[in-house]
């Protein structure tokens, strides 16, 4: 399974990369980690005429705290996130999800920006970015845009990126005080794409009543699903088992799992509900545990 021929250019700077993309548009693809792109090229499912290697653009990688947010360079490898304890404590949702993303060898190369731009419906990071209300900084040779996660994912393997644009940075707002989070997924084997995955974040007020809940899912729609509204019944009170079960039930109207070779749509719906209950319960408990 060898890739079809292409022209390879190693970009020397972000400007260089963007100029090339402006020139070639959809005929060119950026090569970051390559962990999704190269298999597709080996299967000849993807046949870009031009491959723009951006791995040499050092500025594109790294974690930068800035004015209450954390900015993640798009070229940051999963592995770098796993190694950063401070980051892991600030965003335990990501820390909890990382071991579910493929395997160590993939995580050594794969990048956050590459994963988000690829927008696989079963991928964990898009759902987590949505849960955290991330903003994506997107650049072309002409301009820069800041896109909310909710607007970035437009369909299966499809984003709002224009043919001349690159995702350069992910901005995560500071985590809410007095909050707990939990990421859970069901997959056939560790590291496989999720049959269903849930990211839950529960923030409480000083009376231990739920002030805000973020609830997103992967694997159960063409894009990551923001199902936070399903947990509205929990807002303003202490979390109860009944309210949590109700949230899992109202979730069903917000997801549209498509089924696949590993699971029927009914099973996906079923475990999405089970995971939602468990994730909300655990996230609420963790508020008191301090993570």
């Amino acid at each position: 399974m060898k890739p079809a021929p292409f022209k390879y250019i190693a970009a020397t700077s972000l400007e260089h990369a963007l100029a090339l993309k402006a020139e070639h548009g959809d005929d060119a693809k950026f090569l970051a980690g390559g962990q999704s792109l190269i298999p597709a090229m080996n299967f000849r499912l993807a046949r870009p005429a031009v491959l723009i290697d951006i791995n040499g653009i050092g500025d594109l990688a790294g974690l930068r705290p800035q004015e209450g947010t954390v900015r993640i360079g798009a070229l940051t490898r999963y592995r770098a996130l796993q190694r950063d304890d401070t980051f892991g404590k600030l965003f335990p949702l990501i820390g909890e999800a990382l071991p579910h993303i493929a395997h160590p060898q993939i995580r050594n190369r794969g990048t956050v920006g590459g994963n988000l731009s690829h927008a696989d419906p079963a991928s964990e990071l898009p759902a987590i970015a949505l849960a955290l209300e991330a903003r994506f900084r997107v650049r072309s040779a002409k301009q820069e845009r800041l896109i909310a996660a909710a607007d970035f994912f437009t369909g299966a393997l499809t984003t709002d990126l224009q043919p001349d644009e690159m995702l350069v940075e992910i901005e995560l707002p500071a985590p809410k005080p007095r909050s707990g989070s939990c990421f859970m997924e069901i997959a056939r084997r560790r590291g496989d794409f999720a049959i269903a995955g849930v990211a839950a974040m529960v923030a409480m007020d000083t009376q231990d009543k739920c002030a805000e809940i973020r609830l997103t899912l992967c694997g159960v729609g063409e894009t990551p699903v923001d199902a936070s509204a399903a947990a509205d019944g929990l807002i303003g009170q202490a979390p109860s088992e009944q309210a949590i079960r109700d949230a899992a039930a109202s979730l069903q109207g917000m997801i549209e799992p498509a089924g696949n070779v590993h699971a029927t749509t009914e099973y996906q719906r079923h475990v999405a509900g089970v995971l939602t209950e468990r994730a909300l319960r655990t996230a609420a408990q963790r508020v008191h545990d301090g993570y």
Partner: protein
Amino acid sequence: MDTDLHEITLSVNGASYTRRVESRMLLSDFLRHELGLAGTHVGCEHGVCGACTVLLDGEPVRSCLMLAVQAKGHAISTIEGLASKDGTYHPLQQAMHDHHGLQCGYCTPGILMTMTAFLDENASPSEDEVREALSGNLCRCTGYQNIVDAVMTAAMRMRG
């Protein structure tokens, strides 16, 4: 379309190589057929089986998911460089032999490269941690048990 050729210089197991390669040549094919280092094996060419794992600047990566041109200026370590020049095994090679951790041996180089890097980072792993680190390498012959035992033994011996 004319063949897209690039000149690359890289280091493999400490030795420097300069070659002209087509841009689409996979790193796995480059190592095996251009450099004749056939110890790195190819099992799937879509990044799942792990047989092709080599170290890129010390980190395990799937060589079937990299282009040879991407390795320009980097240091690659393959199975051929694992034992000492006089043939003395790395402790993990010795432990694999002692525990019968290989049968057909096809997945073995990928596992050795993955797990030696793992042990460098985690000198006292639990069995669960070993299995997790091993989960990105498929073996069809051994059922993994003896490999896990070999890694635990190697870790113990390396701790002295």
